[in-house]
């Protein structure tokens, strides 16, 4: 992996002609992707310009890193090549908020916070909580398939996106889906692009279905004696008729695991549900629910270096076993774990260690534990020296060949984020 790092020289005159000289600048070390510094940053001002930049890069074999704000730029394997950063930040409009139809069209470079602010003017929202909404772009959130606590009620991005415009390496601007929620005409490219890490094309616009802002919100938190009773409570809540909009677990090596439950709706409805919830939680102790409890996932990204940050996925019934396995795996180590997961079985784990920590052995051990549970583990952050020795995504299974064929159709010259996705894609 990553054996070829020869950078192609970027001839910039033509590039400047496409986007204007003001929107092309030399990259600095701050633009490096996992230690590899690109040569130039280009910021097209329209979809058409963006597509022309791609077409130009493709014709010259220049490797492109699509980028929004770059908040999640380290998610992925080390790039094989990265000469040109293609920034979407000038494509930042909310194109349309069809509030009567509860849909909205947004450009890739629009910040999620800005998007939500616009939607809230008509009492609506994208029912989704991503990391760092004030500085993450919609395009970046889509490309990385980042998801938070609302997913358990409103679905993943794949369930909320209804249309997309994708710029392909050959300069094609292709639309798929549309502006209506119900639509089965043609292949579902919005889903294909979501979570594809910019390896198939660059998302320039997306259309989402929206939800109303709730009248009222209330969260309740509980402390459970151990991971077994934590898991029992998670399953009991999921098996109940409660209409929660968040169900989160938090665990670390110091305190017993906690569960957070969020209700939204009318004040009367929330009160009634809170009472029902309390009848399920006999074994747990209610604790104060702090307003920032739903930001605990994001808080995993703050702390000491060096650290390892992983995304994992197991069945909901295995969340307890997962916690136990993680803590067991770390018993002999001097690592400090913190874990935040959704009732769906998706979660994030942060391990803080020391310079001498054997991260490779830890990742291998965690993957083994996860495999035995039938789950998956991806590495989102680790010391750079470790990253060059692992595939951060883990094994894909028997569909890997098919994924390569899909990549090959969309990006035959492999100019988009080469090497960063699964199986070396």
């Amino acid at each position, binding site marked *: 992996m990553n054996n070829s790092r020869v950078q192609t020289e970027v001839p910039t005159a033509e590039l400047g002609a496409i986007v204007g000289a003001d929107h092309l600048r030399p990259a600095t070390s701050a633009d490096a992707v996992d230690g590899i510094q690109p040569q130039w940053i280009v910021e097209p001002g329209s979809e058409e310009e963006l597509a022309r930049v791609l077409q130009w890069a493709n014709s010259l074999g220049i490797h492109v890193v699509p980028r929004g704000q770059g908040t999640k730029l380290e998610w992925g394997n080390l790039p094989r090549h990265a000469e040109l950063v293609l920034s979407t930040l000038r494509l930042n409009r909310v194109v349309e908020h069809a509030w009567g139809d509860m849909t909205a069209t947004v450009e890739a470079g629009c910040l999620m916070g800005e998007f939500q602010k616009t939607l809230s003017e008509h009492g609506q929202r994208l029912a989704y909580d991503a990391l760092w909404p004030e500085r993450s772009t919609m395009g970046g959130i889509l490309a990385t398939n980042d998801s938070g606590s609302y997913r358990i009620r409103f679905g993943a991005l794949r369930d909320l996106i209804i249309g997309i415009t994708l710029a392909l390496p050959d300069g094609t601007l292709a639309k798929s889906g549309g502006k209506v929620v119900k639509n089965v005409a043609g292949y*579902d490219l919005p889903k294909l692009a979501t979570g594809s890490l910019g390896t198939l094309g660059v998302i320039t616009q997306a259309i989402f279905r929206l939800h109303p802002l709730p009248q009222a919100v209330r969260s309740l938190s509980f402390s459970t004696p151990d991971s077994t009773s934590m898991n029992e409570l998670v399953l009991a809540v999921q098996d109940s008729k409660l209409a929660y909009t968040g169900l989160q677990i938090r665990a670390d090596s110091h305190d017993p695991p906690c569960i957070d439950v969020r209700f939204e709706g009318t004040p009367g409805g929330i009160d009634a549900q809170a009472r029902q919830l309390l009848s399920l939680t006999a074994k747990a102790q209610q604790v104060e629910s702090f307003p920032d409890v739903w930001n605990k996932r994001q808080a995993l990204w703050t702390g000491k270096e060096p650290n390892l940050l992983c995304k994992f996925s197991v069945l909901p019934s295995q969340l307890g076993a997962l916690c136990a396995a993680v803590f067991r795996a770390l018993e002999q180590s001097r690592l400090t774990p913190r874990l935040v997961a959704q009732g769906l079985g998706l979660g994030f784990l942060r391990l803080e260690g020391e310079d001498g920590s054997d991260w490779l052995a830890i990742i291998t051990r965690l993957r083994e534990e996860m495999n035995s549970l039938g789950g998956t583990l991806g590495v989102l952050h680790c010391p750079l020296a470790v990253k060059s020795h692992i595939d951060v995504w883990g094994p894909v299974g028997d569909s890997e060949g098919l994924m390569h064929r899909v990549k090959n159709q969309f990006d035959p010259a492999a100019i988009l984020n080469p090497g960063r996705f699964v199986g070396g894609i």
Partner: protein
Amino acid sequence: MDTSILEEFRSIVGRDGLITEPEQLHTYECDGLTNYRVLPLAVLLPDTTEEVQGVVRVCHRERIPFVARGSGTGLSGGALPVRGGIVIGLSRLNRILKVDIPNARVVVEPGVMNLSVTQQVSPRGYFYAPDPSSQQVCSIGGNVAENSGGAHCLKYGFTTTHVLGLEVVLPDGSLVHLGGKTLDRPGYDLAGVFVGSEGTLGIATKIILRIVKRPEVIQTLLAAFNSTNEAGAAVSGIIGAGMLPAAIEMMDNLAIQAAEASVHAGYPNCGGLLLVELDGPAAEVELLMEQVKSICNSCGAWEIRVAQSEAERIAIWKGRKSAFAAVGRISPNYIVQDGVVPRTALPRILSEIERLSAAAGIRVANVFHAGDGNLHPLVLFDRRIPGQEQSATELSFNILELCVKAGGSITGEHGVGEEKKKFMSVMFAEPDLETMQLVRCAFDPEHLSNPEKVFPRPRLCAERQGIYEPHPLEVAGVAEYF
């Protein structure tokens, strides 16, 4: 078809799994879109994934196109056989393989009926949310192919929302697993692309479904208005008030008459009938139902009924779900259309449909999922009257064009299939269609799996490079082309 190939097929699926008798083949010559018919060369009924693989491998080797078929209830000709091809019927793959209540997952084979999933899990308080009106007879495999919806997808989402993973036999006979029982497996969301691909990317042989806990209460309201415009205003009011009902359905007077003649649902005889279902926590639903009633009243509803029992609720739904078939009571022939418009465009589109209907002298009954703007105009005609079928077909296509012009879609849940493939060019530009077909080229470069469907023109994948190569059987004069 070459006898040695037939013999090979027979060795894979057994004597009773191969149909070649013309009389029997006629059963498979069409799906729910009965005005398109093609006789397949043979029908194969495999019993296992391995048998499906075996059949597909032979098809791949011999370049024989194949069409997978579930119950054949599709309304766009998706399961219409292709000339010179075979049909692979999946009705024998009908086992529910696993029910995992704690994780709300069910693993099924493609031939399992949609309603069987709900029946299997309802004793534990769960249901399978996608509920096409044909749910008693349509198969999960067909639902996966078409990304089927239903009245309750307004709140719960479509088939694609409820499919977590798939075992798929690719058109070269290899087996892959897309998605899985846990979420966000690494790699492209190929399960997301496969669902709704109308059988053009391969054959699903196992499907991991997500089931949903039944809500605490379900309340269904029926409101009678003088016109669909008034009923439409009530829909806007409900959505505008920040509610997300489980379903909002509308029927016009002609559709009501048909439903009454057929199943005696007890609907009021009115110009526009609204059916609103709310579900969720009791306290919430009661409060919101009062709001819905008040919105309906303020929009001119002259009769409002809330079902007082489960039996009443079922009766209300029976009328709605039987509406397509019921139209047979008031017209000898009819076309079911499936267009979508942004919900706010509904009143304008309905007026336009009325105008087109009057101009063509063809009656149109309207049944629709009003909450998400999915229209099902039923275009009524009598085949015995010369020219009427042609006029009805034209009218139904004109309605689709209206939908696209309004920013909508040519299909909300029935699929493109054979019927609407030429309309894909109305809705999408050529680069859009070419890009979609890149997926096809990755899955099925030889265009063997349900070819000639969905897209107006097949993209030539790298292997074909624009040169038409006649099928070897065609060259040998073995294959019959109808």
